[in-house]
């Protein structure tokens, strides 16, 4: 079913970014959550959004993934067929389809991003069935493949995630998102709540998958170590505004803005 009407999309620009954000702002009553945020994201690029809690980075992520409607600004996304569309000018069916196929969303708490009552196999297979997969054997094989890719014992394919450790649940959530070969993944503190050794392993996995699949990602985190490992570029937010952007190593090794300098210096080495 083609959910995208020609009126919703503009013709492809040459070399358009995957995501083009201009002047994005969102307030809750009198409180400004994020203000005048603009950036471009290119295919295969991982952007880290860092800042303390209250900096507006999570609100930004929810606006970009259309879970929240921004008060101002434009978010332009390049669809698979090359055309560019403003996300809130698309119809709701079109957005829902994007969320299930072209995008992934990795929640901080894997329980928010999994169906706890369903088996691991069903969790991974859901996106495939949502777009018409109708061969049980094929779905199961894809699920098993992905369990192996995220280093979960394939014997657990029929177990529910309730019996999994936190790290395993998070890896299952990643598999569930990536099975549909999304081009853009939103991640909200993907390693938050996991202990340090588990974190390291997960970050390695994520970096490998992003490279292998050419994924673009926007990773929100307060942990600069995570940002350094995953992100090509960083955006530093404070009080709802972007205070500094640049290549990850540059921002972390040679911060220009006073706030960034403060953040970096308070990083545990």
């Amino acid at each position, binding site marked *: 079913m083609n959910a995208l009407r020609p009126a919703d999309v503009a013709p492809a620009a040459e070399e358009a970014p995957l995501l083009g954000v201009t002047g994005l702002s969102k307030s809750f009553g009198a409180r400004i959550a994020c203000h005048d945020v603009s950036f471009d994201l290119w295919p295969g690029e991982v952007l880290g959004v860092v800042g303390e809690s209250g900096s507006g980075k999570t609100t930004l992520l929810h606006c970009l993934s259309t879970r929240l409607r921004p008060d101002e600004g434009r978010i332009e996304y390049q669809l698979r067929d090359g055309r560019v569309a403003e996300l809130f000018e698309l119809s709701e069916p079109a957005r829902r389809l994007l969320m299930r196929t072209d995008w992934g969303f990795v929640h901080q708490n894997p329980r928010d991003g999994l169906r706890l009552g369903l088996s691991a196999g069903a969790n991974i297979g859901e996106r495939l069935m*949502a777009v018409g997969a109708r061969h049980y054997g094929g779905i199961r094989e894809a699920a098993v493949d992905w369990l192996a890719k995220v280093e979960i014992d394939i014997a657990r394919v029929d177990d529910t995630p309730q019996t999994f450790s936190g790290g395993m649940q998070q890896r299952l959530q990643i598999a569930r998102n990536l099975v549909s070969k999304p081009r853009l993944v939103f991640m909200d503190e993907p390693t938050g709540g996991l202990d340090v050794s588990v974190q390291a392993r997960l970050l390695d996995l994520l970096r490998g998958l992003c490279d292998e699949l050419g994924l673009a990602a926007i990773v929100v985190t307060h942990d600069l170590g995570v940002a350094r490992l995953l992100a090509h570029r960083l955006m530093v937010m404070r009080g709802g505004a972007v205070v500094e952007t640049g290549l990850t190593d540059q921002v972390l090794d040679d911060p220009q803005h006073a706030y960034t300098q403060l953040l970096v210096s308070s990083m545990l080495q």
Partner: protein
Amino acid sequence: MSDAAAGNGSYNFAYLDEQTKRMIRRAILKAVAIPGYQVPFASREMPLPYGWGTGGIQVTASIIGQGDTLKVIDQGADDTTNAVSIRHFFERTAGVATTEQTAAASIIQTRHRIPEAPLHDNQIIVYQVPIPEPLRWIEPREAETRKMHALAEYGPMYVRLYEDIAQFGQVTTAYDYPVVVNGRYLMRPSPIPKFDNPKMDMNPALQLFGAGREKRIYAVPPYTSVKSLDFADHPFTVERWAQCCAICGADDSFLDEVITDDQGGCMFVCSDTDYCRSRQTAQAAE
């Protein structure tokens, strides 16, 4: 002032007032125009309890006329208590002819079975539906299920089937087995055994579904495709018995298990009493 309000107990033909019938017929027309889609309607409080067939009764009351012949079955039998009660209701309020013979009926109101004898193209079958929404056990909220139908987001239903096969090796839904109507809408056929699902596909009769308590009407027009959900490598199958009907010998009908003693003795007989009777009659004539 209507006779009913004057309290002398006589009611409009088939109980419902004409305005209500018109409202229900409009809902039926919309349902027929969109096969498998659940049309909300303003279900009336009836003299029978919600959950006991009020949806089917309202549909029948809205389409029945003086010249119709009505058959009412429950579990395939004309003599079960609720079928008797509903048939009496129409005898009292409409005075129409009633029959137990499937072939002789112009309207068949049914709970939980489709008659074994194939229907023909000037018959209407009215199903009593308890829960119309096929996604209800997956998503309790009506606001969300309406969206899923609008966008044909039926993935979660297949996930349920997948899970059954993964856990039990087969789909464990034995009745009220979900179907796709006219290649578009996911529909619940009402709690008929899956044995009866194939009868809905390309049926010459008009099939109407009424859910009184949940306030929905839906329909399958004649000669419409109705496909039971399955996977390509786990195709939909129906029940089979090792036994035949102990009375008429039928090996192609849905059989009821009847417990005959407390030693584990039992026998199997046709659930469709009219089918069984007509086979017996034919055999006696030979």
